[in-house]
């Protein structure tokens, strides 16, 4: 049953690449924003908080459309990036990674923020008295202590990115080998007569990948937690 055709392999590998790149690129922003929301009071914080979580509650097709008009070739951001940095999103796998990253972002920020809020700030004071400047305190105390939350955020974002469909297909369409991820491939297969068997194989793959991500996160979180338990 799991004799995959080259086209199916392409979709699987593309999905993994898109999800990995989306998660990796979202991570620095996720940590920065999580920190900002957990630690700083500023004007417009509630608004920023709301915007961050918007992709979670908006219909994905709306998010995809918004990406299309801003990051598309003729969109203001898309045109700027294409002209100055040669980065093109529209109808490319990079665009799929962008939409997957945007959709997974709120799921990443939330656990990171919660982990940062739970940290005993007095440990950071102690680190400062021991000679660590703000950046070193963050790197050597804050971030390691928030690691379980960061891992949870990474896994949730990755899982979301792996399964993203609506925003991606709206933004970069459904091009085999370029933007056709597992979800899009399943959708396509279900549109053609006799595609059920192939779709079924991809469905199993999707389940396996999601389970693997969850098990991996559990393992990482356990290891991170163990470091606080001692020996």
């Amino acid at each position, binding site marked *: 049953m799991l004799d995959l055709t080259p086209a199916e392999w392409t979709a699987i590998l593309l999905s993994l690449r898109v999800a990995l790149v989306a998660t990796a690129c979202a991570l620095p922003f996720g940590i920065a924003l999580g920190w900002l929301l957990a630690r700083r009071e500023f004007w417009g914080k509630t608004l920023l908080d709301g915007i961050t979580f918007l992709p979670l509650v908006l219909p994905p097709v709306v998010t995809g459309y918004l990406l299309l008009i801003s990051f598309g070739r003729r969109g203001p951001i898309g045109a700027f990036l294409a002209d100055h940095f040669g980065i093109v999103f529209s109808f490319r796998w990079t665009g799929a990674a962008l939409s997957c990253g945007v959709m997974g972002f709120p799921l990443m920020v939330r656990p990171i923020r919660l982990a940062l809020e739970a940290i005993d700030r*007095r440990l950071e004071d102690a680190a400062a008295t021991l000679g660590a400047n703000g950046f070193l305190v963050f790197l050597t105390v804050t971030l*390691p202590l928030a690691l379980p939350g960061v891992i949870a955020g990474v896994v949730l974002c990755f899982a979301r990115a792996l399964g993203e469909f609506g925003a991606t297909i709206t933004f970069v369409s459904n091009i085999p080998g370029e933007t056709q991820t597992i979800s899009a491939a399943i959708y396509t297969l279900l549109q053609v007569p006799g595609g059920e068997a192939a779709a079924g194989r991809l469905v199993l793959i999707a389940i396996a990948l999601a389970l693997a991500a969850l098990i991996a996160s559990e393992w990482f979180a356990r290891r991170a937690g163990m470091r606080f338990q001692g020996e």
Partner: protein
Amino acid sequence: MIVLAVDVERRLGAFQITARFEAEGGVTALFGPSGAGKTTIANMIAGLLTPDRGSISLDGTVLFDAAARIDMPVHRRRIGYVFQDGRLFPHLSVRQNLDYGRRMSGVARDADEFARIAALLDIGHLLERRPRMLSGGERQRVAVGRALLMRPRLLILDEPLASLDLAHKREILPYLVRLRDEASVPMVYVSHTPAELRRIATKVVRLDAGRVLGSGGLDLLDEREIDAIR
């Protein structure tokens, strides 16, 4: 010779702290009942809290001067701080905790110094453990070692025995007395317990309700002396 000169004011809600005192070498006790402002003053010396007015200088270096707009950041003050609750880093081993201040302060590794302080505090056998696996007394000894290994110009100990039971108090005090006699680091020792301070302090600054009632010898630990000041 005056090592530490403190002259600060700070308002916290309805509570006003006005403190002026000087400290020579040895162990200067900040003594008074809870709520007297002892920890607040210690935090201002360390730089964890900013005074509203006044100045703080250590070894001739100005750490804080409101009028001159000088406020040296905490991490550059090189003041070792032993907190009431130890505050060891839970994600690091005892050895990594001990090394933390040295590394962050850019002090070169010195195996002899490490061995000397580990022996002084009797923590050499704990190095590979995590803080969670330590007893309260061991934890405080590691916290003292961590602060010492950054080669501080001043060591602040904020009620270092308060979280310990009587047996552990008795266990750790001799180490602190040895520290006073063997290490040449001036100390500020915050406590509300006269018995503890009689064993370790060389000078007493007596505080109550945010004010300095008097500073001088160990006789200030006595209740009757305070009545005389009043």
